[in-house]
């Protein structure tokens, strides 16, 4: 059994002296692991950095085997944004989330396309990535939830049915709630930043923090909690980085 496909590197850890076990995401085949001969060695380690886009080849004698991966670097996302704090934190968090959350060998082409678009945004122009990346990351997290069957329902207010003025999300049902319907229950609801409703909205640091809390609550409860695992540490570090950012509109995290 074998396949050739464009892939995004999610993680790679050393195996033996020069080898590595890499985890890649493809549109057609989903998340796949494989042994990379020499993957942790001087020559190939740069290829297997998280976030890189590669042209991958996987083969094994039997489908249930770990298999062997080889790849040629197509786009070095990781190298392009290493000097940029916030894009790097977003890349790490996205790859760590996909690495931990996606089921093995189950195609999720929308998640792949979303991650590819996010990594392209972050790495082609890192300063633009620092400005627009957090909102794109949060929308991609919502897409991951949706693709895995735990999507938020932001189409209308769960109480009144109205489609405007949506400001909150019920932490129990994942459905949007309008400001007027929230009433006295407001402090029990999760704030819904406008960037989830409007794809052209880039958001502000405080909205990014609200967005992380919103998707984080459902990722924790529905995806990671069920497996008794915490959210990825890289996502927590992104949270810390955004917590240190100024309240509105600043770019203190982009250096």
């Amino acid at each position, binding site marked *: 059994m074998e396949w050739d496909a464009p892939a995004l590197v999610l993680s790679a*850890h050393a195996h033996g002296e020069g080898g590595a076990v890499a985890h890649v995401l493809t549109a057609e085949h989903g998340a796949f692991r494989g042994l990379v001969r020499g993957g942790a060695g001087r020559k190939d380690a*740069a290829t297997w950095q998280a976030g890189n886009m590669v042209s991958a080849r996987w083969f094994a004698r039997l489908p249930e085997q770990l298999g062997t991966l080889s790849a040629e670097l197509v786009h070095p996302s990781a*190298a392009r944004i*290493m*000097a940029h704090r916030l894009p790097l934190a977003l890349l790490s968090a996205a790859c760590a989330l996909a690495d931990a959350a996606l089921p093995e060998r189950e195609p999720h082409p929308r998640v792949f396309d979303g991650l590819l678009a996010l990594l392209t945004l972050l790495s082609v122009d890192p300063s633009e990535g620092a400005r627009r990346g957090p909102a794109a990351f949060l929308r991609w997290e919502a897409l991951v939830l949706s693709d895995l069957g735990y999507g938020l329902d932001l189409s209308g207010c769960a109480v009144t049915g109205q489609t405007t003025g949506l400001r909150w999300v019920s932490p129990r049902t994942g459905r949007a709630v309008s400001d007027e319907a929230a009433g006295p229950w407001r402090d029990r609801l999760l704030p819904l930043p406008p960037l989830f409703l409007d794809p052209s909205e880039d958001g502000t640091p405080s909205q990014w923090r609200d967005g992380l809390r919103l998707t984080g609550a459902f990722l924790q409860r529905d995806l990671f909690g069920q497996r008794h695992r915490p959210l990825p*540490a*890289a996502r927590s*570090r992104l949270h810390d980085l955004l917590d240190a950012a100024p309240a509105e509109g600043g770019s203190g995290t982009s250096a």
Partner: protein
Amino acid sequence: MGGPEIERLIELLSRLPGLGPRSARRAALTLLRQPQTRLLPLADAMQRAGQSVRTCSRCGNLDSRDPCSICTDDHRDGSVICVVEGVGDLWALERAAVHRGLYHVLGGTLSALAGIGPEDLNLRPLLSRLEEGGVREVILALGATVDGATTAHWLADRLQPFGVTVSRVAQGVPMGGALDVLDDGTLAAALMARRAG
């Protein structure tokens, strides 16, 4: 093959980096053929090292003294500390003789995959050295990997309150390297880190 002692020797040698069972057998055979000149001096050196070498409580280096010979060298510039991931990196910089300041061995980099968090890094002694004063620059000489860069950003934030200059080692074209054989990532990093000629 030759008794449990030889088997045990081969087994222990084969666990060392760069040695597999076959090369461990060759190494064992070489040692056993010349016990007086190779085996016993090696065993003695290993025993002495095992008894005397320890981790420096200031910088994390390995030495038979604590503080280590680098930390106590008066000829070094104590106002510059170079932070490295492991002792192997410290040795590489010492071999090149390019840094005449002090070091700090972090003991790893932040890695979600390997489960290494901030609490697992050897950070407290570095912060204590900065609190003592007299340090004007900290050089972050960490690997050009996602984990290394993430750790460098995180560390730069932690060091900011001390008011020291935080610098990083450059990335780019290696000495003797032709551009057409460099990987795309190194080329991209080199071009982005270009400077006025």
